[in-house]
């Protein structure tokens, strides 16, 4: 499935430094953006550039590069846990309209590099949002891993981390051991 969107249309992006928890910007709800604003389009291009150079990264939200805005990019193409895939796209002011088929899963985050956590996410969602550049309003229906990635990024835009949603007192795991 493809969207009326081509990341190349955003122009060349710059790789930005990723911010890590406990950076305050990660805990504050982002502001709505104008998807046709050239600065927003440029930021979307920068998010793509930053995601592309980050191994294993399937999504990146504006707060993760220090911008408290409701904008993110995702691309779960080729991921083994993905079912429905809409390719690489950016979304502004995204909202979850419907969520169902809740399932547990383990997720990590570039902004919380040392931990992973068990988080229940909807396995099927309907999301609305606007495409940077054209400003076109779209609705995406997706499932499985793309649905999880979207929920994770939409959470970032609301100032939430997966740590706010983990399922229990022992549902956070250390990725590396420092001895």
């Amino acid at each position, binding site marked *: 499935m493809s969207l009326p969107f081509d990341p190349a249309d955003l122009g060349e992006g710059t790789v930005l430094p990723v911010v890590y928890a*406990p950076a305050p910007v990660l805990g504050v709800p982002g502001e709505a953006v104008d998807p046709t604003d050239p600065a927003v389009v440029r930021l979307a291009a920068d998010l793509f550039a930053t995601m592309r150079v980050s191994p294993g990264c399937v999504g990146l939200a504006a707060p993760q590069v220090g911008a408290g805005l409701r904008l993110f990019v995702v691309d779960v193409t080729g991921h083994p846990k993905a079912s429905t895939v809409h390719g690489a796209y950016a979304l502004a002011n995204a909202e979850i309209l419907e969520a169902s088929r809740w399932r547990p899963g383990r997720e990590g985050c570039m902004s919380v590099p040392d931990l992973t956590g068990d988080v229940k996410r909807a396995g099927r969602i309907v999301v609305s949002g606007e495409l940077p550049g054209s400003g076109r309003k779209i609705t995406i229906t997706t499932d499985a891993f793309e649905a999880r990635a979207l929920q994770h990024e939409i959470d970032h835009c609301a100032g939430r981390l997966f740590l706010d*949603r983990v*399922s*229990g007192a022992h549902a956070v795991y250390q990725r590396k051991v420092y001895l």
Partner: protein
Amino acid sequence: MTELAVTVIGPDRPGIVADVAEALAALGANLTDSTMTRLRGHFTMTLICAGELRVEQVEAALAPLGLPFAVRDVGADEPVRQAGETYLVSVHGADRLGIVAAVTRELAGAGANITDLSTRLTGPLYVLLAEVELPAADAATLAERLAVVAAELDVGITFRPTQADLL
């Protein structure tokens, strides 16, 4: 039947659980509830074991292992009372002195009973996760109090009911 509480903490290495569990099994001590985990570089075991046992017997069995330990008779098991609904408190923010103290004091003040709690420090990030039992009627008040504590500590706190799926 005696119930003994045993704690063991030592530098992490393969075989600690096997050594302790074997020593207890040889005495006929049946392991009931336990948590065993690695905290930084230390492996820690906290467990209850039951059997026809004396504290001295268990101490004598564990001493040769060369690990710091403690054994205590905790009497017979009391039925655990469930004090209301179960909630999960997530706290994360910049590490600073007193996060656990401030959050748990607020929980205690609200009558919330902590049933499970873990903390992790990774770099500058401190994470606290606590499962608590609380009468549902008190939840809204506690949520408000925790928001105040979060602002004071400059950390993020979420407080929500845990979702148990009964199958």
